[in-house]
């Protein structure tokens, strides 16, 4: 049974590696991801948001909703840490 799962893993891995051959070159300016939204951000960030740092403007402005979720995740981590660990006596 272990041998069978090894074979399944190797075959799946081989397929995945074969799939990566179709991926665009690293940093290829003609890849689909670099042709669609990236030029839009590079050209308009300075004009639209007056923020020279593109990373910041994408993080907090264009993708602000995503960052709100990230902040909520951090807040939830803190809240669950408190719920799991903190044992406080009632005063009085």
């Amino acid at each position, binding site marked *: 049974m272990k041998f069978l799962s090894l074979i399944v893993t190797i075959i799946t891995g081989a397929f995945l590696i074969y799939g990566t051959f179709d991926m665009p070159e690293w940093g290829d300016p003609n890849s689909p991801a670099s042709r669609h939204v990236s030029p839009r951000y590079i050209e308009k960030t300075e*004009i*639209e*948001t*007056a*923020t*020279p*740092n593109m*990373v*910041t*403007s994408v*993080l*907090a*402005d264009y993708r*602000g*909703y995503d*960052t*709100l979720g*990230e*902040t*909520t995740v*951090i*807040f939830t*981590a*803190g*809240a669950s*840490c*408190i719920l*799991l*660990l*903190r*044992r*406080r*006596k009632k005063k009085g």
Partner: protein
Amino acid sequence: MIIRGEDIIIKTISRVLVPFIQLYALYVIMHGHYSPGGGFQGGVILGASMVLLFITHGYAEVNRKFSENIAVLFSSIGVLIYSGIGFLCLLLLGNYLDYSKLYKILSVDPAHARSLGILGVEIGVGFAVMAVMFSIFFDISTGGVSPDDEEEAE
């Protein structure tokens, strides 16, 4: 866990270092528009300065200055600042988190309003990350039981 720091060398050095670390953290938050950085990174540095203070000066002194309950409050305030700015944009007849509508109350052009909106959001993120970092460290190092309670139990 250290309840009260004793070593004078460690205490003095950290007392000198902590303000500079906090100043650097504020710089990282405020300068996120022009250089790498922003709310998350600056908040972590700010939290690290509080952790350094906790390690060197001990529970008693830090709890007097910045207690666990205040840390919880600050983390909520951080998320509230973020979502509050989003709702403010909604009230100014824009989409949620559409900072360009803030120009109506900030008296700048929409592009700069977006820049300021980003800054406000980063400050909120910084608050939340700093408080959560500190709160988690507080809870793990004390095991969730504050030494005051333990003294009473003894």
